[in-house]
């Protein structure tokens, strides 16, 4: 076994993968949010549709999207491996547990939170990503160029109450997942420092509320304005 595979098989190495993929997905979320903010523009969806076309055609974006897919798969695969390892480490559990007094609920339930987010992600990708790539969606003309009208697909989707409710709830799960994951990733990388750790904690606390809240605001905004 080479030193690389040996390292990646160790508990610390597996946590390294979790941290790196997690941090990359946090970057992805930030970019995703920045782009989707255009749904709030009062321009009939022009800016959003032009952005959507750019996202499916730009080669650099393509490379980043493959990195995102790899990160999601890596994050999931390693969490399953770690979950099994951790479960095996305590074959007989305690009759009474006082875990709530020494750790946060989110930190103890990252697997459950992540599973819900993964299921949501599958549905989310089918609704928009799949439709954009292979679904028969209407087109619009801006000037002389034809664009797929993803904006209308989004508008229609979020006129359904259950879709809006699902998205808002899923963002709640994402918020809790990030409330632990953000600062935890830095700790796994060994980045714990008297000067920077309080800032990382503060940014993480802000991020886990603001980002899911803005994502949740999109379906709510569309639902209540259309």
């Amino acid at each position: 076994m080479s030193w690389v595979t040996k390292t990646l098989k160790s508990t610390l190495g597996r946590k390294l993968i979790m941290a790196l993929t997690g941090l990359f997905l946090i970057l992805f979320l930030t970019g995703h949010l920045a782009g989707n903010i255009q749904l709030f523009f009062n321009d009939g969806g022009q800016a959003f549709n032009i952005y959507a076309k750019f996202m499916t055609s730009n080669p650099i974006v393509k490379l980043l999207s493959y990195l995102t897919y790899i990160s999601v798969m890596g994050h999931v695969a390693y969490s399953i491996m770690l979950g099994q390892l951790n479960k095996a480490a305590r074959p007989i559990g305690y009759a009474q547990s006082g875990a709530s007094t020494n750790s946060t609920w989110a930190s103890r339930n990252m697997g459950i939170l992540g599973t819900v987010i993964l299921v949501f992600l599958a549905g989310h990708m089918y609704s928009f990503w799949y439709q954009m790539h292979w679904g028969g969606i209407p087109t619009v003309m801006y000037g002389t160029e034809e664009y797929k009208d993803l904006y209308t697909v989004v508008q229609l989707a979020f006129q359904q109450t259950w879709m809006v409710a699902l998205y808002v709830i899923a963002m709640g799960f994402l918020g809790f997942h990030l409330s632990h994951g953000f600062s935890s990733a830095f700790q796994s990388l060994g980045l714990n420092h008297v000067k920077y750790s309080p800032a990382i904690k503060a940014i993480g606390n802000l991020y886990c509320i603001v980002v899911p809240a803005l994502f949740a605001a999109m379906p709510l905004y569309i639902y209540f304005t259309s």
Partner: protein
Amino acid sequence: MQLTLKIWRQKNASDKGGFATYPVNHVSKDMSFLEMLDVLNEELTEKGEDPVHFDHDCREGICGTCSLYINGKPHGPLQTTTCQLHMRSFNDGETITIEPWRAKAFPVLKDLVVDRGALDRIIQAGGYVNVNTGGVPDANEIPIPKTIAELAMDAAQCIGCGACVAACKNASAMLFTSAKVSQLALLPQGRVERKTRAEKMVAQMDSEGFGACTNTGACEAECPKGISITNIARMNREYFSAVISSDNL
């Protein structure tokens, strides 16, 4: 005080085990938790029953021998060792649940006694520290900044009781191992073997069957010696920089 004790009884390592309930009367608030168990055991011995087996030694909070998972927390409700826990932390008439440390790497030997040899083997895997032979070195011959000495001492406070493993939802020994890695990595005397030490101790920790770290912080909150999880971050740094730069294939 009158108490009801729900205690894990297990004849030997291969026995399935189960809870037994014992009433104990005549308990003083000033007794330590272990003295309370001594009272119970005297009563059991007088009745000709097998006393409850539990680990204990110094009874002054410095040896790390006592354990016990009391009412869902290692070493009970206070952040101290079980020997330093007193019955005034409990209420009259309370039912107290006492379980052994639960981890695959800590097999139950009998009742509340578990084999914590896995922790010893992690220390052994760390190996030796090089020192100069010859006469006894002068005091302060190697200058060590006060802040570094304090950090190393904070890590060296670990008494190896295993409360971190017991508290962790993954039965991970990261806090223990990181304290042992840190106390030597911080000091100039421990620098020579630091890379090999980090690699070998982590490898041993994994092979013992401990879980991974989820950074819940439960270990730090329950550690009777207040070992900080900043040590875990330091171990991660030590380990990653070691595997990247060491000569060990």
